[in-house]
């Protein structure tokens, strides 16, 4: 960090301290009205409105603290339970939802200590630079205000003009200490807030469970839909063709003595029909689990895929082993989908796929030199990738400024098995 960054960061932290003071003060009425709301619940029923209102305001205040902490590199995850469906503000169940959430009480417990810490640390991060500035400006202030009985730093009171001038270097030193200390004070404040505002271990687990439940439901839905599609394709395609095939051969058998010429024609027809059935089955198999993926793993399959694309795609890989079959399949289809998107939408001339493994995570980066401007909220392609990866706790991020280039980075936590020892079933 060069000195300009250092000063900018310090100044920002001092400004943060300036903000922290009024924010800390806000905590006090929040606490007071919360207590009133709680107490009035049985008496007048006002609490049914006031208590939730105050809780929501406190949550908003806590969110501000979380956002400020994030600015200082301290991540504080929101711990709140999701609102049950169909529960409206003012109802008893709304009240229950808030009152039974331990995070509500942890927020309240934070209000006063948080205010105190915010106030002390905020004042401290303001006072040091302020005092430093005073020292720097002491001589001009003297001249302007005309006071002479004044002390600064090491000298109380200042007795000689020499001591007076020494306030300038002292002030400069204190100002730099203040600026240097301010970011640490902010960070300390953030860490203090995290003690109260971060989810407890139990809450963290609860959130993970609900995320897993959601991704599992997505996965199950997607798989059920996939199975339905396969069933329909088989039923209308290969199965129907085999029925027709049997019929044609049976017919040929019947007439082979009486009319060998027609029988031969029927047999040729039967052969063509068997070829068509095979073509359909091959397409279907490719969609379920590409054979080259079973044979060569992710690396080979992605290379084979790149060769079949109408756009030149360079493939760089660093995978010392093979992945578990389900992960491999998810990774392959994610790469395939990302490349298909690039070809469909980017108007790119070149593409690149990079695959590597960090020891814990498979990283897949797909880039193109197209026009950029891809938006994951539009179009189902990128959305589909995200869902596919979510089933394995994978993530996707997209960088696509207008004018390109577009870079899709996908990460899948997984382990590698030793090279080429994975048996799979089926036949080529």
């Amino acid at each position: 960090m060069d000195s300009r960054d250092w000063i900018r960061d310090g100044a920002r932290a001092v400004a943060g301290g300036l903000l922290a003071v009024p924010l800390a003060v806000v905590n006090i009425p929040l606490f007071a009205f919360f207590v009133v709301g709680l107490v009035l619940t049985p008496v007048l029923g006002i609490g049914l409105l006031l208590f939730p209102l105050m809780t929501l305001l406190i949550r908003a205040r806590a969110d501000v603290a979380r956002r400020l902490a994030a600015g200082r590199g301290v991540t504080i995850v929101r711990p709140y339970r999701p609102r049950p469906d169909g529960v409206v503000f003012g109802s008893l169940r709304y009240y229950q939802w808030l009152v039974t959430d331990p995070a509500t009480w942890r927020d309240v417990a934070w209000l006063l200590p948080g205010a105190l810490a915010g106030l002390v640390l905020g004042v401290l991060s303001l006072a040091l630079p302020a005092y430093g500035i005073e020292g720097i400006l002491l001589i001009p202030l003297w001249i302007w205000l005309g006071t002479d009985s004044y002390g600064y730093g090491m000298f109380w009171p200042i007795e000689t003009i020499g001591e007076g001038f020494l306030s300038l270097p002292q002030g400069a030193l204190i100002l730099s200490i203040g600026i240097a200390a301010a970011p640490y004070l902010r960070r300390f404040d953030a860490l203090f807030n995290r003690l109260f505002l971060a989810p407890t271990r139990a809450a963290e687990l609860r959130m993970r469970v609900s995320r897993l439940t959601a991704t599992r439901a997505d996965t199950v839905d997607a798989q059920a839909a996939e199975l339905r599609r396969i069933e329909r394709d088989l039923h209308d395609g290969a199965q129907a063709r085999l029925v027709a095939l049997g019929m044609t051969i049976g017919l040929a058998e019947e007439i082979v003595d009486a009319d060998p010429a027609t029988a031969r024609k029927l047999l040729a027809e039967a052969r063509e029909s068997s070829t068509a059935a095979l073509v359909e089955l091959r397409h279907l198999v490719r969609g379920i689990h590409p054979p080259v993926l079973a044979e060569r793993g992710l690396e080979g399959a992605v290379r084979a895929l790149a060769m079949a694309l109408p756009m030149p795609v360079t493939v760089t890989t660093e995978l010392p082993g093979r992945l578990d079959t389900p992960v491999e399949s998810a990774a392959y289809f994610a790469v395939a989908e990302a490349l298909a998107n690039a070809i469909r939408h980017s108007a790119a001339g070149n593409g690149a796929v990079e695959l590597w493994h960090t020891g814990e995570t498979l990283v897949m980066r797909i880039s193109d030199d197209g026009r950029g401007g891809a938006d994951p909220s539009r179009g189902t392609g990128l959305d589909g990738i995200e869902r596919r990866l979510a089933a394995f706790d994978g993530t996707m991020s997209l960088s696509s400024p207008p004018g390109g280039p577009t870079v899709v980075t996908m990460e899948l936590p997984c382990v590698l098995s030793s090279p080429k020892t994975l048996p799979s079933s089926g036949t080529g």
Partner: protein
Amino acid sequence: MRVVLAEDLALLRDGLTRLLEAFEFTVVAAVDNGPSLLPALLEHRPDVAVVDVRLPPTFTDEGLQAAIEARQKIPGMPVLVLSQHVEPLYARELLTDRAGGVGYLLKDRVANVAQFVDSVRRVAGGGTAMDPEVVSQLLARHSSPLSGLTTRERDVLELMAEGRSNGAIAAKLFVGEKAVSKHISSIFTKLGLPPSDDDHRRVLAVLTYLNA
């Protein structure tokens, strides 16, 4: 002609044996797994090997690997590789030694018996039999350099890349052999390939170009 056959499904192994023997091939060995394929090839040194890509015990691409290895040990040993699916990637690997006598076909092609037997004979004779599906995938990748070709030249190129002789191309396109060789020399000029009279070498040149 002596054949070594590698196919794990008994139904197909017996069917292929019956088919080949009906056309005066002798199946000297029919193996059903990857590890015993290479020793069989080295022991029998067949006139042609017909090999399934995917074999036990790993059910990956053992057949292909064994075929490539055998050709390293016995350069130019004719190998016809069969598979339920075709990949230009595998075709490239088979063609890298540039020795000829290579075939790579979908299993479906067995249904057209006459054509299949012709392919086996062609490979045994040092020629090439490339599946139309591979060829069309290769052509799709090269749409820009190939856009200079006429439609007829593209048709000729496609059939040539499959490994067919001038005569066979002529018959298929209902033109004379002279016209075919004229088209071929025009294709070679347009793609900047060195001219060659040898049929097999010509095919390899085209496939190498398309596979690059």
